[in-house]
């Protein structure tokens, strides 16, 4: 799996595996550097996921008898009815 496609849980699990291998002490130095680099790349990716990524906010609308997804106009929209 490519790092950029990992979700948080997948990434975290992979770092845990890598950490265990590093702790195992059976890797050659060059191998441990590779594992280390991979762990750090995932680390960066997860941080990005938590600090930069913005999920999409959409709504399902019925148009001409079929369902379509459109962006949901988020904050500041007109006509908020406080009673709901």
């Amino acid at each position: 799996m490519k790092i950029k496609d990992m979700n948080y849980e997948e990434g975290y699990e992979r770092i845990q595996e890598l950490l265990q291998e590093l702790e195992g002490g059976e890797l050659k130095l060059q191998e441990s550097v590779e594992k280390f680099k991979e762990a750090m790349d995932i680390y960066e990716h997860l941080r990005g996921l938590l600090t930069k990524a913005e999920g999409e906010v959409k709504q399902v609308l019925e148009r001409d008898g079929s369902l379509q997804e459109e962006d949901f106009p988020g904050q500041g929209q007109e006509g908020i009815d406080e009673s709901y």
Partner: protein
Amino acid sequence: MKEGNDHMRPLMVSEVNGYIKKLFAGDILLTYLQIEGEISNFTHHYSGHMYFSLKDDKSRIKCVMFKNDNEAIDFKPKDGMRVVISGHVSVYEKDGSYQVYVRKMEKQGLGDLYRAFEELKKKLAEEGLFDQERKAPLPRIPKKIGVVTSSTGAAIRDITSILKRRYPAVNMLLYPALVQGDGAPRDIIKALKYLDSREDIDVIIVGRGGGSFEELGAFNDEALARCIADLVTPVISAVGHETDFTIADFVADVRAATPSAAAELSVPDRRTLLDEVSSIGSSVLGEMEKRISREYDKLDGLMKRLSYSSPYRSLSDKQMELDGIFRQLEHSMFRRFSGYRERLAGYDARLKLSDPGLPLEKGYGIVTDPDGRIIRSIEGIRLKDVISVRLKDGSLKARVEEVFEEAKDEN
């Protein structure tokens, strides 16, 4: 003018009040009764006891409800509210006043609607629709959250703003639905079924903001309750306020007190995850440092043992490998763990210093840049650059005054 009982001694006030109290206590009606009326002058004393009057259009009666008893009330009593209380009437001797000692309080006036609610609740409970074993666990980190509510209500606004704050990476798909009125249950059911049929929805929030018992009626609909029970996707109900309970709440996998609370339950707080990931990142870093330090010690030991024979060739292989690795680490790594690069540079410099091919004792020096990297060539050196020179007993900082290029005649 003398009355028949004037031979009696005058009574003390407390005796009269005590006597009346006994009369009350002996009365079968006053020892347990239900009274309906409207709350007025309500105060919730800091001691936890509640004091108020109950009134109708002709009269009022004082009431007290002690902390132990009022803790069981599942709504917030306030002035103007119509309630049915039960308890007993007794005399408060100190004031010579009587009052109702309330044991139970219920909202009144909902009549048929409320009874229907209670009956449906009982029926579905008996069928096992509310059983804990039926409840699906929520995913820890959903990728996409389905929401069923009004697209113009406060509920969707609260939900989106909380998701954005807590875990902005999550996707949300709203299926707008009517949340009150006759068409509402059918509308909500259609939305729930659609979202449940999609593969990409990990959890569904269904609900609306607060309202009266009648306004929340759609969420007490039997067909809706059965639909929620049948959904495969975990469902969080989020109807009204803290104190509102609907059938949908009982049948959902998780009941949230409000739409905001539902949003909070549906995703983790990213700050917690940031802590978690920082912590494991540090562990990985620490492991790598330990490893490098071990390699250094090994190399150092080898060098000590071999420094009087002729280790130069075999050691320099090892040294080159480590050099390469330091470069890789420096290139790949990362701004976040501050001080890491410095520590790395420190190891590098120690390694270089331990090289027996550079006999400091004989008066050679090692020249490094401010980052601790060894300078082997005049290439890249500019006037006024600051360099460090390591000698056998210490080091010095120097500034480059002049650079001379040598004729290339050495091997």
